[in-house]
């Protein structure tokens, strides 16, 4: 006999409710598989986002049993409690409908934290050589693999408490730019990151580093920014 999962899913906007569905359990089933099953077989009206299904694109993040996760790489048997799943939209973002949130503020804050690259070279110039083993390059490498899924942003208590805080993903990006020797906008970056709502607003709860699905360390990046831009930091 097929085991049945009891799945509660957030339906509606901000004032929505949880609705219950019964979904057959499968081997190696992911949370995204469950949501897709519901949309295809039980409730075609369900709104959610996904694209690559292999943990590359960062679009399928949701809150699963209270914890923000990338659903395409989260196995049901690892997170379900007594055969139950509660799937809600990401926290700290406005709900558009069901499991879909408005990601615009999340990306606007990347800009606010100075996350846009600025260079001075054109394609006609010779490429600047960067030593792959240099300290700065290694620090940048450690921070660049972000998939923009907003799991860290959703798990951050400080983002929840302060609207103006740019959040861990944006500051992690800022830290990789800080270490980018080709980035010419360092002064602007410093101003953005030091501003209210920037790195000094973080309390180092480190929920971001704990929840990051690709094992980045945004809390470490933020701590490094705090140090680098303080009176004890190295000049850059």
């Amino acid at each position, binding site marked *: 006999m097929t085991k049945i999962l009891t799945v509660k899913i957030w339906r509606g906007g901000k004032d929505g409710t949880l609705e219950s569905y019964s979904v057959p359990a499968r081997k190696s089933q992911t949370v995204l598989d469950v949501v897709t099953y519901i949309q295809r077989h039980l409730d075609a009206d369900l709104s959610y986002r996904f694209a690559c299904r292999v943990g590359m694109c960062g679009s399928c993040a949701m809150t699963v049993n209270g914890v923000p996760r990338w659903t395409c790489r989260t196995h049901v048997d690892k997170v379900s409690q007594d055969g139950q799943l509660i799937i809600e939209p990401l926290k700290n973002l406005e709900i558009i409908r069901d499991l879909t949130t408005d990601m615009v503020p999340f990306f606007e804050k990347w800009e606010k934290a100075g996350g846009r690259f600025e260079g001075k070279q054109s394609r006609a110039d010779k490429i600047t050589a960067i030593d792959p083993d240099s300290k700065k390059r290694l620090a940048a490498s450690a921070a660049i693999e972000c998939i923009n899924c907003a799991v860290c942003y959703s798990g951050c208590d*400080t983002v929840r*408490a*302060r609207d103006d805080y740019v959040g861990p993903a944006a500051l992690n990006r800022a830290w990789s730019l800080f270490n980018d020797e080709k980035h010419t906008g360092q002064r602007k970056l410093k101003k953005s990151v*030091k*501003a*209210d*709502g*920037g790195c*000094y*607003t973080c*309390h180092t709860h480190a929920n971001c580093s704990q929840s990051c699905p690709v094992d980045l360390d945004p809390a470490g990046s933020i701590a490094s920014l*705090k140090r680098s*831009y*303080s*009176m004890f930091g190295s000049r850059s």
Partner: protein
Amino acid sequence: MSDATAYMLQRLSAAVLAPLVLIHLGLIVYAIEGGLSAAEILSRTTSTPLWAVFYFVFIIAVSIHAPLGLRNIIREWTGRHGRSLDWMMGTFALVLLLTGMRAVMVIT
């Protein structure tokens, strides 16, 4: 006050407070364990200006540190920010400083 300034002041005052709090607690335990009377304690704290300096620094660090922590809590729990919050915390810092100084002057 900007988040950056508040952060640095908070950390610097914490660095000052960390050893001072340990010594302060150790002192309390020592005085109680040794069974010293209030008069005996007072005679010792007044015997050297070192304790006055110690607690003078202590009170200044506390007057910086505590209002900044409270400021964060008020800001995050109530959303209040800007000049009114700075005034509130400035007043709180002053109260801590004055009452603290008064206490230090009495015992040293």
